[in-house]
């Protein structure tokens, strides 16, 4: 740069090495947080166990290979797999269930999604994974209700209801893409799943939270295309 003029790139070189390093680290932090649409770094209250994380990642990969949708949710027009966005940032989200209220024959599970995601992304697909530890086949199905808060946010309304036949112990999947998409559309951040088992089942037999078979929702989302104003 001409004498005396301030050269942005040189400015850094003029700093003392430690000051330069601090400036670069601050820049790196800010850059990552901005790109993740975070105000500040999140504080982790209950990290997921490594076992549950690895099991979930393995299940998602196996599911992709099978490309088989579970017998549970009838295809009620789930989200059409939108063409992968050219260059738009995509997200894979793993949301592990938080236990809600339960009775002798039903249990509620809550799945939370942050505002950063619900406000700026569109859901491409979402799948609920449930692991049944029942000893043997059950003739009568489990009732699965997807609940979401009503307009006032006071009561829970049934967004959809389906029946899940559990033939043997193991993982079952349900397509919840439509429900999660409509949640995001209403600006809500919590999906509630209610599982109700027939009388002869005893309590809903789901693995415990500490176990690596805890229920989770795996979703794929994509950043919304920036709103373009067409000038005519």
């Amino acid at each position, binding site marked *: 740069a001409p004498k005396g003029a301030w050269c942005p790139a040189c400015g850094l070189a003029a700093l003392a090495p430690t000051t330069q390093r601090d400036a670069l*680290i601050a820049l790196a932090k800010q850059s990552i947080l901005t790109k993740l649409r*975070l105000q500040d770094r999140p504080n982790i209250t209950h990290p997921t166990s490594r076992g549950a994380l690895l099991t979930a990642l393995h299940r998602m990969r196996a599911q992709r290979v099978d490309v088989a949708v579970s017998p549970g949710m009838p295809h009620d027009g789930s989200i059409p797999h939108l063409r992968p966005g050219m260059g738009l940032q995509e997200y894979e989200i793993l949301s592990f269930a938080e236990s809600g209220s339960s009775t002798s024959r039903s249990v509620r599970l809550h799945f939370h999604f942050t505002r950063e995601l619900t406000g700026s992304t569109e859901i491409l697909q979402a799948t609920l994974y449930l692991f049944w530890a029942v000893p043997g086949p059950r003739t009568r199905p489990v009732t699965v209700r997807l609940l979401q808060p009503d307009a006032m946010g006071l009561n829970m309304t049934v967004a959809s209801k389906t029946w899940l036949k559990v033939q043997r112990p193991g993982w079952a999947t349900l397509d919840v893409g439509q429900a999660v998409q409509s949640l995001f559309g209403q600006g809500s951040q919590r999906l509630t799943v209610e599982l109700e088992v027939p009388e002869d089942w005893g309590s809903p037999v789901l693995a415990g939270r500490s176990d690596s078979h805890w229920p989770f929702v795996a979703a794929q989302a994509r950043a919304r295309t920036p709103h373009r104003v067409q000038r005519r």
Partner: protein
Amino acid sequence: GIDCSGDSRMCCRKEFFVDFKEIGWEDWIIQPEGYHMNYCTGLCPLHMAGIPGLAASFHTAVLNLIKANNADAAVDSCCVPTQRRPLSLLYYDRDSNIIKTDIPDMIVEACGCT
């Protein structure tokens, strides 16, 4: 592109690694262990303008001399990224959900003169 080394003053790529453990972010960023926040630095004399990286061939050197002799016709030239790649992150969000995303164009692979 050229990596900066020793006292090279020409346009080059400066490597800079941010270790997430060093900055206390390893609890919420599961993978990777750090971020290569490389950047471009160095001079772009006018006869280097428009050539990615430094001159590496006789033809380019001659081209540079022609440019240098017509220096007054040229404009300023800057040392900028010519190749970049995404930063893949696996991290916890505020609700302890686990998110995987690829942030485009976050890692500078090569630098050159505009």
